[in-house]
């Protein structure tokens, strides 16, 4: 962005502000104020320009010469005049030859299935429209899901239809046949002395069985599982604490006090969906009796857990082990000296003890085994085991051991046959770069994966693997619940199901269905097969005995790092497996709201010390490895610490993900928390963040208060709040005075953790396109529901809050009277309707919307992934669309419709049965996905509906009520439950 010097405006660059200055600026304002970014606090000229200028990057328009201008204008006029006049092409109807029994054309079918991420299952229910999966939702009966999903589950749909997925078996880059591959693989295997099979962490009991048999049949063979972000530490920690490995399964609904030791509670694999639900269930406020659980979080970077915390303590990740030791000391009434304030630690310990077993300590997956062992000891001491945490015996081995051995064997040339399934070792193994040459010398190498990845590029063979919606399989969740993965569609390309691949290599080719069913029939589950397919669960979790700790905790280890470098999986593209998923790339990351990039996150103080500001490129060094990436300042990050998200910088994954961001895996050899350094380079890298877009200019928008404040002032309304004059309106309110059902929504900010699941569920349901990084930089992202992120400074500490904002469906909607063509009008059921076919694209409505929730199709975004100026339709992406929602094209305004297609479907079904729509019958896409059940939708004219009850709560308020827009969406204020004995 070009820099413009503000005249007569006292403003500084955000990076030049100190914490004191920020506090002073904040205190000068009246009451509690929330800011969206540091630039906003500083009032930088760039920020003002962005706010005030409709086209912040318009240099291209001004630099246009006269001829160019006339050409563009001429073309625009011609298009504007003629685009409406054409004869429609003759359409064809292609009927079935033999109509399938279950399909009623126009009605969807739902199938229970499951997806696997990082070796754990998440139960799903997938909607199929005329044989085409169009929407992924959670499975109520699955313990990890309980009906909700995370962002990854929603986005798997785009992965299924991704045009860049592998389509053919390749031999040295040339198209070959699957039979040729099998012949070559089997011949080479027969001759091989030390064959290796490398997979990701396998969640399928059937596949584990198959692979074990394959390895057994070939002496010298080994099967190695590898995940760059794994739970090795938890396994090793349980060995240290209990003497044998245990799986850690949390049930936060049983915990009144939770201490997170650097754990990103709501972003640690599929079980986090359940953890979010349990956490929120302990925070439901009913009436004035406010009973809430309490979350203490120790962390370096800011995570979704940190912003939900009642006490968020900013510490270095490398200090956390010692802080845990302090907690142990405090629990045993000993001197609790250490890096953290002993008095606070003592209060936390007292709180944990006072809960009588209803408390738990949770350790982060990236922390060392030592911390997990300490957490086991503490959980035993406070009586949490068997309540809020279960330790489930397992025979899994830490993945790191096998991976290190494999790397050594590869480097030593001791591997002569290697098959990689769904793992990407040449990209994610520690020191993977050095292995490339050695890998190429292996006589037989093959990769079976969804995409032709970095490892496939160096392999002799590549086999496209079937997506989980294309092939039969099974999978276990963290608590041991097993599900059958049911396919919804035949493989779109020449993809092979993983079970068939392994069976064929073993010399016993069989269809995947027979293999999976055979496995469960052998286990005696044959009789309940049909029910298992229907429910999505074939064998439920078994209760386990609580293990007893053996020995004590180890001696104090090394001190905290002087400057630490933290590596974490990316919150939206995980370890890189979703790098080619445009939905996830464009999903604003929680807290930073950065899209299409990973960044070097650091605190304000660290940035000032390094003399860098946002978008400056720095070099991060750990040991001998260094990477370069752009800086992003995160208020509340620990000082002398940086956080980097992995998964970016892919060189081979498809047209969306290649060349986006920077690769941090070279730093992985030093571990997830390592001592390192950061150096300023004289470069900058533009970042597309949604952060400073859609600003609401510091008005009273999010209401937050402590439980104490809530007891005195249940509405939590600021004392100086302005009120609209009652009854003063220019609008005709008569239209709501009819006996139709009146739709409304309520969002509980107390439950919202800012996980973004709603945003992407809405994207999947409503055919919302991806616009790309450049368009996001222009503020043109299309998400109908966005998560606003605000922070405030209180006693030198940053406090974070989030708020989902979609169209508020105002009864007196300011967008409606300004539309010259009546393309946005109100329905008698209270919906603010958007009529695409009327819209001529004046954008007056968006201009007049105080909530900035309207989205405009500046270009042909649909069916497109990158080049929007060209109309390069990708036919495969048309399969992705929900047929019940119009696909919008260029020049059309759009926004949240309250999922009107779902309302209409429910209304029509109810009308056919001569009744009203029942409460809970309509579930909007965002509501369905929400892991914490923060969103309620229903009839606000029925006083007994759930939404009416939520709106009747005292902490319920409307956004910008002073404008008298009468929104149909209401919010319930966020409460914090700080420990009154801790002086923050």
């Amino acid at each position, binding site marked *: 962005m070009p820099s413009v010097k503000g005249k007569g405006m006292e403003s500084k660059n955000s990076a030049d502000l100190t914490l004191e200055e920020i506090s002073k600026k904040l205190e000068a304002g009246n009451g509690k104020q929330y800011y969206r970014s540091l630039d906003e606090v500083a009032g930088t000229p760039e920020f003002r320009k962005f706010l005030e200028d409709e086209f912040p990057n318009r240099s291209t328009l001004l630099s246009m010469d006269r001829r160019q201008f006339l050409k563009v204008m001429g073309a625009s006029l011609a298009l504007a005049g003629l685009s409406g006049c054409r004869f429609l092409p003759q*359409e064809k109807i292609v009927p*079935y030859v033999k109509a399938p029994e279950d399909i009623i*054309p126009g*009605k969807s079918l739902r199938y229970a299935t499951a997806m696997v991420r990082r070796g754990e299952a998440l139960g799903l229910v997938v909607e199929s429209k005329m044989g085409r999966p169009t929407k992924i939702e959670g499975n109520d009966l699955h313990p990890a899901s309980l009906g909700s999903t995370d962002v990854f589950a929603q986005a798997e749909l785009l992965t299924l239809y991704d045009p860049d997925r592998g389509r053919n078996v390749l031999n040295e880059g040339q198209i070959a046949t699957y039979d040729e591959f099998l012949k070559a693989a089997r011949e080479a295997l027969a001759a091989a002395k030390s064959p290796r099979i490398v997979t990701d962490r396998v969640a399928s009991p059937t596949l584990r069985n198959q692979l074990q048999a394959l390895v057994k049949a070939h002496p010298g063979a080994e099967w190695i599982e590898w995940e760059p972000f794994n739970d090795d530490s938890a396994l090793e920690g349980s060995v240290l604490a209990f003497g044998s490995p245990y799986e850690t399964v949390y049930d936060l609904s049983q915990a009144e006090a939770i201490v997170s030791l650097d754990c990103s509670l709501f972003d640690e694999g599929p079980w986090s969906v359940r953890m979010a639900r349990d956490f929120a269930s302990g925070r439901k406020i009913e009436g004035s009796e406010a009973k809430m659980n309490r979350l203490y979080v120790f962390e370096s970077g800011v995570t979704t857990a940190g912003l939900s915390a009642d006490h968020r303590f900013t510490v270095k990740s490398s200090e956390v082990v010692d802080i845990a030791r302090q907690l142990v000391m405090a629990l045993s009434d000993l001197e609790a000296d250490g890096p953290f304030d002993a008095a606070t630690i003592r209060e936390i310990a007292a709180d944990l003890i006072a809960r009588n077993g209803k408390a738990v300590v949770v350790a982060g997956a990236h922390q060392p085994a030592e911390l997990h062992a300490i957490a086991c000891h503490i959980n035993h001491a406070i009586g949490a085991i068997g309540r809020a945490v279960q330790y489930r015996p397992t025979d899994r081995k830490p993945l790191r051991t096998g991976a290190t051995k494999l790397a050594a064997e590869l480097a030593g040339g001791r591997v002569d046959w290697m098959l990689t399934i769904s793992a990407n070792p040449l990209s994610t193994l520690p020191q993977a770069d050095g292995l490339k040459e050695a890998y190429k010398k292996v006589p037989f190498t093959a990769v079976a994966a969804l995409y032709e990845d970095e490892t496939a590029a160096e392999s002799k063979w590549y086999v496209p693997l079937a997506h989980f919606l294309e092939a039969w399989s099974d999978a276990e969740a963290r608590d041991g619940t097993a599900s059958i993965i049911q396919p919804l569609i035949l493989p779109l390309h020449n993809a092979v199901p993983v079970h068939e691949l392994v069976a064929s290599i073993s010399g016993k080719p069989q269809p995947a269905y027979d293999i999976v069913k055979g496995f469960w029939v052998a286990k005696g589950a044959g009789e309940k097969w049909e029910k298992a397919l229907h429910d999505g669960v074939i064998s439920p979790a078994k209760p386990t005995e609580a293990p007893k700790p053996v020995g004590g905790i180890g001696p104090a280890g090394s001190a905290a790092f002087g400057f630490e470098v933290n590596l974490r999986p990316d919150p939206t593209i995980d370890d890189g497996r979703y790098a080619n998923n445009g939905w996830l790339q464009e999903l604003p990351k929680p807290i930073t709201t950065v899209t299409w990039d990973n960044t070097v996150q650091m605190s304000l103080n660290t940035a000032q010390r390094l003399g860098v500001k946002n978008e400056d490129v720095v070099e991060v060094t750990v040991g001998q490895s260094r990477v370069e990436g752009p800086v992003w300042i995160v208020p509340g990050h620990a000082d002398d610490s940086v956080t980097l998200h992995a998964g970016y910088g892919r060189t081979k994954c498809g047209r969306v993900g290649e060349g986006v961001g920077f690769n941090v895996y070279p730093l992985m050899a030093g571990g997830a928390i390592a001592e390192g350094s950061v150096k300023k380079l004289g470069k900058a890298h533009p970042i597309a963040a949604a952060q400073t877009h859609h600003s609401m200019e510091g008005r009273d928008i999010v209401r937050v208060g402590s439980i104490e404040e809530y007891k005195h002032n249940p509405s939590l309304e600021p004392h100086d709040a302005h009120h609209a004059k009652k009854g003063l309106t220019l609008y005709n309110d008569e*239209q709501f005075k009819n006996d139709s059902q009146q739709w409304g929504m309520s969002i509980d900010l107390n439950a919202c953790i800012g996980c973004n699941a709603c945003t992407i569920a809405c994207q999947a349901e409503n055919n919302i396109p991806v616009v790309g990084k450049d368009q996001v930089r222009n503020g043109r992202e299309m998400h109908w529901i966005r998560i606003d992120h605000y922070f405030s400074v209180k006693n030198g500490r940053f406090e974070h809050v989030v708020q989902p904002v979609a169209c508020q469906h105002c009864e007196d909607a300011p967008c409606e009277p300004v539309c010259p063509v009546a393309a946005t009008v109100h329905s008698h059921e209270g919906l603010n309707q958007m009529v695409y076919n009327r819209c001529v694209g004046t954008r007056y409505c968006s201009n007049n919307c105080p909530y900035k929730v309207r989205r405009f199709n500046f270009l042909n975004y649909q069916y497109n992934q990158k080049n929007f100026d060209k109309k390069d339709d990708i036919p495969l992406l048309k399969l992705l669309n929900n047929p019940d929602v119009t696909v919008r094209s260029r020049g059309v305004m759009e926004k949240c419709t309250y999922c009107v297609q779902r309302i*209409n479907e429910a209304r029509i079904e109810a009308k056919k049965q001569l009744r009203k729509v029942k409460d809970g019958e309509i579930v909007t896409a965002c509501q369905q996905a929400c892991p914490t059940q923060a969103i309620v939708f229903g009839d606000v004219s029925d006083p007994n509906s759930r939404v009416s009850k939520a709106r009747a709560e005292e902490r319920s308020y409307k956004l910008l009520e002073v404008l008298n827009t009468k929104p149909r969406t209401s919010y319930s204020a966020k409460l914090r439950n700080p420990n009154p004995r801790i002086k923050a």
Partner: protein
Amino acid sequence: MAQLFKPVTNTIARASLVAAAAVPFLAIFTGSAISRSSYNTKAGVSLEQPVPFSHQHHVQELGIDCRFCHTSVEKSATAGIPSTDTCMMCHSQIWTDSPLLEPVRTSFATGRQIQWATGGEPGWNKVAKVPEFVFFNHSIHVNRGISCNECHGAIQKMHLTNKGKAFFMKWCLDCHRNPENVLYVDQANPQLDSKQQVFNLYRKFQAGAKLSPREQALANGLSYTPTAEEKAHAQEMIKKFNIKKATLEDCSICHR
């Protein structure tokens, strides 16, 4: 030097003035006439199909129920198009060597979708199409007793299927604003519920039963203006079905 402008020039000039005034109106008039003509709307224009299927024969002469082929018409938004299987239920027994049915037999034998004898393109030409931003639901209309002929014209008389009505938005709104004009109970068979009445109408056509003036109009695909008594009766139905007239006019009822 000869006269530059001859006397006839005056006439041309006057005519030009008139034309200048008239041409824009004529252009607009012609444009709108074309857009309303069946050249654009395709109303009443029979399309070529892979098999020259006759509704007249199957519905009027043989008395086959609509739902035999359009299976989902009372359950779902779309009426459904019969599969090859459905055709072959009868045509494996009758007209088994008709050359017109060759595409059906080929489809059944090969398992491939029905194809044009020439060109090899699959599928039927779509006759009744609403734009993609319009979401019409067959089931709710059928459940309210709205006759198929109300929108599809005199379908039971069509030898080759054509679009019975022009499908203008105003035409949709005519009923959505005044549902009392189309809601009715067949007084000869008051025991039938609204849905049954829709399909029973074709049995009446076939049997040559005595038709009410409204049914007469439906049989011929004509519009009908109900009497005051019929309207009053329809008002009762509006109450019974709890039809909210204002809501019916909301944009999001059809556009979403």
